[in-house]
C-alpha cells in the first residue's frame, strides 16, 4: 500500500506540470493559427468600419500579447472561472459535460467490448493452435482497416441496406440510446480488438507453457481452470496497460467515428473548438482529455501493483 501512496505522490506533481506545459503549448499553437475572433466577426459583418475593428480588438483583449492573455486565462482557471465558449455562447462546462459523457459511453463500451472479444480470441488462439491462424488473420485485418472506411461500410450494410440500426446521430430524449451505440461501438471495438487479441495470445501461450502450469496440468487441472485461475491473472498486467492507453487515446481519438456517425462528443468538440478559435473551450477540452488519459494510465499502474505486488520499485 505504501508503494501505491508513493506512486500517487510521485505522479501528482508530474501530472500537474504536464498539464501546465500542455496548456501553454496549446495556447501558443492556437495563437499561431491564422485568424482571430475579430477577423471572423469581420467576415460575418462586412460593413464594420476600421474604427469598429479597433474597438472590437480591444473588447476581445486582442490588443494584448499572447502571454498576457494566457496569464489572464490561467488566473481565471485557478479561481475556478473557466469562462465561456466563443462558439456556443455557453459556459464551457455546459458544452463539455454532455460531450464528455457521450464519448465516455461510446469509448467505455467499445474498449470493454474490444478487450473482452480480443482476450477471448487470444485465449482461443492459445488453447487451440489450429484456430491460431484464423485469429491472427482477423487481428491483422482489424488492425489494417481504416476506421472511417469501416464505419461507412457498416452504415451502408446495417442501416441503409438492412435497416436494422440507425445510421448515426443521437436518440431523442426518452428513447433508448442503445441502438445508436451499436455501430459506432462496433467500429471502434473492431479496430481496437487486434491489440488485445495479439497480446492475449502471446501472453497466454507463454504463461501456459510455464512450469507451474505444466505441473498443474499434470495434476489434472482442467484447461479452462488453468486459463482462468493461473494464466490469465499473470497475463493481465500488459493487457491492463494496453486498456489504459487505449481508453485515454480514444477519448479524443473518437473524432473520426463521431464524425462518421454524426455523434456529438469530445473528439468533434475539440476539433471544432480548435478550428473555430474557441480558446476557452479548446484549452479546457484538451486539458480534460489529457487528464483522463493520465488518470487512466495511473489507474492501470495502481491496478498492476495490486495484481502483481512484485512490480513495486522501479
Amino acid at each position: 500500500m505504501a508503494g501505491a501512496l508513493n506512486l500517487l505522490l510521485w505522479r501528482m506533481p508530474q501530472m500537474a506540470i504536464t498539464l501546465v506545459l500542455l496548456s501553454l503549448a496549446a495556447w501558443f499553437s492556437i495563437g499561431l493559427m491564422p485568424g482571430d475572433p475579430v477577423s471572423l466577426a469581420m467576415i460575418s459583418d462586412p460593413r464594420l468600419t476600421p474604427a469598429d475593428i479597433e474597438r472590437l480588438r480591444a473588447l476581445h483583449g486582442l490588443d494584448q500579447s499572447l502571454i498576457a492573455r494566457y496569464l489572464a486565462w490561467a488566473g481565471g482557471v485557478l479561481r475556478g472561472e473557466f469562462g465561456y465558449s466563443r462558439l456556443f455562447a455557453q459556459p464551457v462546462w455546459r458544452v463539455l459535460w454532455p460531450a464528455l459523457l457521450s464519448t465516455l459511453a461510446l469509448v467505455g463500451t467499445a474498449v470493454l467490448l474490444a478487450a473482452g472479444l480480443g482476450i477471448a480470441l487470444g485465449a482461443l488462439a492459445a488453447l487451440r493452435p489450429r484456430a491460431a491462424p484464423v485469429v491472427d488473420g482477423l487481428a491483422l485485418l482489424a488492425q489494417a482497416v481504416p476506421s472511417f472506411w469501416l464505419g461507412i461500410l457498416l452504415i451502408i450494410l446495417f442501416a441503409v441496406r438492412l435497416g436494422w440500426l440507425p445510421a448515426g446521430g443521437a436518440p431523442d430524449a426518452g428513447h433508448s440510446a442503445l441502438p445508436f451505440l451499436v455501430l459506432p461501438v462496433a467500429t471502434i471495438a473492431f479496430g481496437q480488438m487486434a491489440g488485445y487479441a495479439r497480446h492475449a495470445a502471446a501472453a497466454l501461450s507463454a504463461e501456459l507453457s510455464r512450469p507451474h502450469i505444466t505441473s498443474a496440468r499434470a495434476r489434472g487441472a482442467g484447461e479452462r481452470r488453468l486459463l482462468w485461475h493461473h494464466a490469465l491473472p499473470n497475463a493481465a498486467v500488459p493487457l491492463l496497460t494496453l486498456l489504459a492507453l487505449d481508453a485515454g487515446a480514444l477519448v479524443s481519438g473518437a473524432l473520426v467515428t463521431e464524425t462518421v456517425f454524426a455523434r456529438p462528443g469530445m473528439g468533434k468538440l475539440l476539433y471544432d473548438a480548435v478550428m473555430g478559435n474557441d480558446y476557452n473551450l479548446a484549452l479546457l477540452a484538451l486539458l480534460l482529455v489529457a487528464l483522463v488519459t493520465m488518470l487512466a494510465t495511473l489507474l492501470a499502474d495502481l491496478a498492476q501493483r495490486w495484481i502483481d505486488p512484485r512490480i513495486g520499485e522501479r
Partner: protein
Amino acid sequence: MRHLLAVLLALLLFTLPAAAQAPRDSLVIGLSQYPSNFHPNIENMAAKAYILGFALHPVTAYDAEWKQSCIACTRLPSLENGDAVLETTPDGKPGIRVTWQLRPDWKWGDGTPVTPEDFRFAWEAGRAFETGLGPAEFYRSAYRFESAGPHSITLHFDKVTFDYAGLGQFQPLPARIERPIWEADRANYRTRSAYETDTTNAALYNGPYRIAAVQPGAGVTLERNPHWGGPAPAFNRIQLRTVENNAALEAQLLAGQIDMVAGELGLPLEQATALQRRTGGRFRFHYNPGLTYEHIDLNLENPVLADRRVRQALLHAADRAQIVARLFGGQQEVAHGGVHPRDAGFDPGIPQYPFDPARARALLDEAGWTSGAGGLRRNAAGETLSFDFMTTAGNRTREQVQQILAGMWKTIGVDARIRNEPPRVFFAETVSKRRYGGAAMFAWVSSPENVPRTILHSDEIATAARNWSGQNYTGYKDAEVDRLIEALPLELDANKRRPLWAGLQRRVATDLPSLPLWHRSDAHVWPQWLDGVTPTGHQNYSSLWVTQWRVR
C-alpha cells in the same frame, strides 16, 4: 459470452425506433450545420436563421418572389402610403422616418403581446457597441426610436436607401426578460441572454413554433407555440438534426431517420442529383436557384492577371456550361456576373463569355503570351503564364471544380497551380488580407437587389491601414463603378435604378476583376407526402413560411 450476446440482441430488437408508422404529426429535418447560438440579433448564421425561422418572426422579409413583404406587420411602409417620410436629420443630412404597423395578434409564447418596448430594447442593445450585436451599420444609421401606439414602431434613419421598407435581421426581443439581463452586464449580454441560458423558455419565441429541447451539437426539437395567433402549422413537433458529414446525412435519409433535408443547409448539388438518379421516386427533389454566387477573385496586383485580356481569356477557356451539365446535373445556372438573372437589377445585355478556346488563345497571343516549350505560354521576358489558384480545402465540390478548371486552362497553355487551405485560414487570413497570389475561388451570399458596395467600391479595398476591413479583395478600382455604386442605393425609383444596375454590370463584366462561375442552386429533398414548402433562394429561408407546409 453467449448469454451476453443474446441479451444484447434482445435489447436491440425491442428498442428499435418504430419507423414512422404513427399519423404524421411530426417531421424530422436533416441539416448540415449546428447553430452556435440562439440569439436572433447576434451574428447571422445559416443554421440559426433556418431554425429560428420556425420560432421567431421578423417584421419584414423577402418572399419567394424576392420582393420585400410583411411577416409581422400589416402593411409595408412606402412613401406613397405615408408610412415612410423623407426628412432632414438634426445634423442636416437627408434622412427618412419609417413606421411599421405590427400585427395586433402577435404574441410571445407565454401569451404576452409583442410590444414596441420589445423593439425599443432590441434597438438600444444593438446600439450599445460593447454589447456587440450586428450589423453595426444598421444601428448606427437608425438614430431614433419612437412608438405611436401599442402596435406601431417608428425608426429615424440618417441615410435614405431604396430598401428602407425592410427591417432586415432586426427583431424584437422580449424586454421583460432580456432588459434586466442586459442592464446588469452589457458587455457580456451575448452569453448571459436567456436565449443562451434558458433556450427552451417559451416566452422567448413569437413564431408558430418554440424551441422545446436542445441537444448541443446534435439537434433541436420544436413544438407548437400555444399562443400563436396565425394559421395553425401541420406538425405538432419538428425535429432538426445536425449531420455535418455529407455521406452520413445521406445515409440517415436513406435509413429513414430523417424525413427531409433542408436545401438551405443540405446536400451538395452533385450528391443530390446522384441520389435522385439512384432513388427514383422515393423522395421529391427540388433544385432552387439561390443568391449564392460562386466565383473566382483575381488578384489584380499580380502582373499576370492585371492584364484584362488574360482575365477574359481565362473565362473564355473555362467551359462552365459543361461543368454544370456534367457535375451538377444541369441544375444550376452559369453566372455572367454577381447579379442573379432573377434579380430585379439584372441586365440581360451584360457581356457574356461563352466557351471559346480559340478566342482565348487569340487574346493571350495579343497580350504577349505566346506558346513556349512544354505547352506553357511565355512572355517576351521569358516568364511563364502561371499563377496560384486557391480555394477552401475540404470542400469537395470546389476542389473538383478547381481541378477541372486548372485542366481546361492547361490546354490553352496557362499554368494554374493549385494551393488550398482550410476555410478558416483561407477566409480569415489569405483572402481577407489579399494574400492570395493569383486566383481565389469562393462564394458571396447576398440578398435581393443587394448593392455590391463592399465588394467593388475602391474604398473597400482591404489594406492594413483600414484594419483589413472591406471585401474588395481583387483590388479593383474604377471611378465609374464607384459612382454607380454610390448612386444606386440613393435612387428610390426602381425604374431609374435599372440603367444604373445595367451600367454597373456591363462595366464589371468587361473588366472581369473576378470570374463568374455560377449561382448556386439549393437541393431540397422532401418526402413524397410533404407539400407546400416554398424555397426562397435567399437568407429569409423557407422555414419562415412553415404554416404553409402540409401533409399530402
